[in-house]
C-alpha cells in the first residue's frame, strides 16, 4: 500500500473519530437541557463553529504524528510535493465531495419544506458535511487504487 493510500485511510479514521468524539462530548453535555427555538439556533451555530477549528487542529496533529510514525516504521520519506496525478485525484475527489454536500444541503432544505424541526435541518447539514468528507477521502482511495 502506498503512502498516499495509507494517508487517506488515516484521514478517514481520524475524521470519523474526531466527529464521533466531539458529538458525543457535546450531546453528553447538553442532553438534559431543553432548548427553546432561539437557544436551539445558538446551540447548532456554536456546534458547527467549534467543530471546524477542532477538526482542523486535530487533523494537523494527526497528520504530523502519522508522518513521524511513517518515517520511523518504513525508513521512507513521505513525498514532499504533489505531482500531476495527486492534483488530478484531489480535484476529482473534491468534485465528488461537493456533490455529496450539495445532496445533503438539498435534503436539509427539504426537511424545512416538510415542516420538520429546525434541529433536523441542522443534523442533516452536519451529517452531510461529514458524509461529503468521507466521500472525498474514499474517492481518493479509489482513484489511487483503480487509476484515473
Amino acid at each position, binding site marked *: 500500500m*502506498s*503512502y*498516499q493510500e495509507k494517508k487517506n485511510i488515516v484521514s478517514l479514521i481520524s475524521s470519523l473519530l474526531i466527529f464521533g468524539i466531539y458529538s458525543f462530548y457535546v450531546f453528553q453535555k447538553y442532553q438534559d437541557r431543553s432548548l427553546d427555538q432561539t437557544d436551539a439556533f445558538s446551540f447548532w451555530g456554536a456546534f458547527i463553529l467549534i467543530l471546524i477549528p477542532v477538526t482542523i487542529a486535530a487533523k494537523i496533529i494527526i497528520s504530523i504524528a502519522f508522518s513521524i510514525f511513517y518515517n520511523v516504521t518504513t525508513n521512507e520519506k513521505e*513525498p514532499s*510535493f504533489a*505531482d*500531476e*496525478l*495527486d492534483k488530478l485525484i484531489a480535484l476529482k475527489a473534491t468534485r465528488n465531495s461537493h456533490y455529496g454536500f450539495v445532496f445533503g444541503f438539498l435534503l436539509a432544505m427539504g426537511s424545512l419544506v416538510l415542516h420538520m424541526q429546525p434541529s433536523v435541518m441542522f443534523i442533516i447539514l452536519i451529517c452531510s458535511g461529514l458524509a461529503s468528507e468521507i466521500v472525498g477521502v474514499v474517492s481518493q482511495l479509489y*482513484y*489511487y487504487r*483503480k*487509476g*484515473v
Partner: protein
Amino acid sequence: MGKSLIGNNVRKLRFNHNEMTQQQLADQVGVTRQTIVTIEKGNYSPSLELAFRIARVFGLPLEDVFFLEDHQ
C-alpha cells in the same frame, strides 16, 4: 477510470536500463513513485509533458515508450 487506452513499455525499459527502480525513474522525471506505479499498471495516462520526460530518460522517441492500445 481503470485501464487507459494508452499502453506503455515503462517496466520493460526500466529493466533494460540497469534495472532502474521506480523511485529512481520518479526522481528523474519529477513525480512520486506512486505515479510511476500507476502508469506501469496502465491505470493512468500521463500528461504529454511527463510522457516526453519519461521517454527522454530512456533516450527513446515517445512512440517507443507509449502506444495506443488496440481494443478490438
